[in-house]
């Protein structure tokens, strides 16, 4: 018999037999942590493919997400900016409304605490064009029962008095005006004096003798002597008290109790009836609504 060898056939057979035995070995051998070698090979064989696949998918997604799908981003961005601006305005409006609600709530609380005292709530609608005087206009006038020299207050303290009355608006001379004055007393010693405006943020208290004991932070209340404000309304607190040896009276600087520089709503006292300020603390928000109209319901 003549045998014609096939070199390729025998080489293929050799490779197959060797590879089969290599796999046979791999199936038996355990490497570190008792993992069979064939598993190690399988993982090492597959992991580069997985890595490349993962890298490719990640970059495709990245490319898609960062470039292709951003075609309309400019328009979206402009729309979002516009929306943001609109929301900023809306937010400012809401913040303002919230602050107003707080103020009105405080005023309502104050009004409920003194429901027996006739008073009218008013909104500040303008100021004086004269920078030297401190005058504001309120949206209440003679038709609402407002009269000249009526006291104007906020829950924080005295604001001023009615300077002029028109049918629908009134002018209020603020406590800080140079022409303004309020009869007052020191809360601790009941020492009386007159609080005057200076045209500046601070007030002064005159006619307090040098031998009086005045301490910083002490409250100054209305005395009722001016026949405008009832007794014991907060006017200011003592900021500084200096004895003037050349004069018989002390030099006392005060910080107003009411926020005269940012008034928005005020209460006009329709009579000079005294207010019992102790009742204010006991007032409940759930108390019956006041007789007077609030600014929001005034018009």
């Amino acid at each position, binding site marked *: *018999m*003549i*045998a*014609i*060898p096939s*070199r390729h*056939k*025998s*080489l293929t*057979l*050799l490779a197959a*037999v*060797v590879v089969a*035995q*290599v796999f*046979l*070995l*791999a199936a*038996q*051998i355990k*490497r570190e942590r008792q993992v069979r*070698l064939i598993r190690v090979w399988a993982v090492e064989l597959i992991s580069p493919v997985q890595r490349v696949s993962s890298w490719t998918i990640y970059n495709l997604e990245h490319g898609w997400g960062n470039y292709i799908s951003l075609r309309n981003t400019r328009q979206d961005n402009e729309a979002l900016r516009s929306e943001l601006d609109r929301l900023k305005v809306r937010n400012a409006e809401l913040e303002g409304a919230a602050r107003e609600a707080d103020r009105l709530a405080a005023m309502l609380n104050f009004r409920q605490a003194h429901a027996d005292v006739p008073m009218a709530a008013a909104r500040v609608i303008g100021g004086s064009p004269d920078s030297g005087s401190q005058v504001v206009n309120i949206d209440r006038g003679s038709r609402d029962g407002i009269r000249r020299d009526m006291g104007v207050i906020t829950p924080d303290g005295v604001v001023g008095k009615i300077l002029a009355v028109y049918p629908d608006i009134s002018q209020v001379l603020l406590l800080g005006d140079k022409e303004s004055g309020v009869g007052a007393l020191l809360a601790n010693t009941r020492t009386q004096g007159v609080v005057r405006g200076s045209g500046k943020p601070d007030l002064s208290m005159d006619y307090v003798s040098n031998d009086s004991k005045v301490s910083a932070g002490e409250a100054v209340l209305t005395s009722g002597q001016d026949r405008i404000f009832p007794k014991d309304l907060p006017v200011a607190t003592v900021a500084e008290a200096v004895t003037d040896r050349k004069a018989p009276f002390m030099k006392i600087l005060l910080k107003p109790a009411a926020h005269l520089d940012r008034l928005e709503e005020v209460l006009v006292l329709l009579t000079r009836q005294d207010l019992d300020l102790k009742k204010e603390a006991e007032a409940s928000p759930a108390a019956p609504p006041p007789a007077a109209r609030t600014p929001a319901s005034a018009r």
Partner: protein
Amino acid sequence: MESTEIYIGPEPHIEVHKYYGGVVPAVVVLALVLQAFFPAHFRRANYLELPLLVTLYFALSKRNPSSGLLLGTVIGLLQDSLSRTPLGLYGIAKTLVGYAGSSIGTRIDVEHPIARFLLTFGFYLFHHAVFALTSQLLLAEHNETYISVPILIASVVNAFIAIALFPLLDRFRRPS
């Protein structure tokens, strides 16, 4: 009865020998048994590598790479089965020896004692190198050296044994 085949290949004048039925399996089993027996009783016998000699002998004689590598595979796997090595370690080494021996047997005269000595010497080193390489790559065992004095001594010892053993095995050939 035709006992000699004419090989048509690179060296068409070289004869391909055949053996009586059952000779090859018997010789393989005997070699494996003796390989297990001698080292257990004679300390110096661990130089012996009878399965390798049998693989090489039949590869050189039959001169067919396919049958040579398959016989090497079988002998190697049997040796692995009888020893503590993982299946395939001796198998791969003897597969390559069977293939290479058959390929060489088709090209040169392997009947001369000196040729048999040199071939056995070389194939012993080749077999050990494949064994060491496989151990390192697959088993991560680095205690196998490729060549050393004991290995050289073993290769020389097996080469001398081959000079004596191969003529003995030649007697089992079918007469031409």
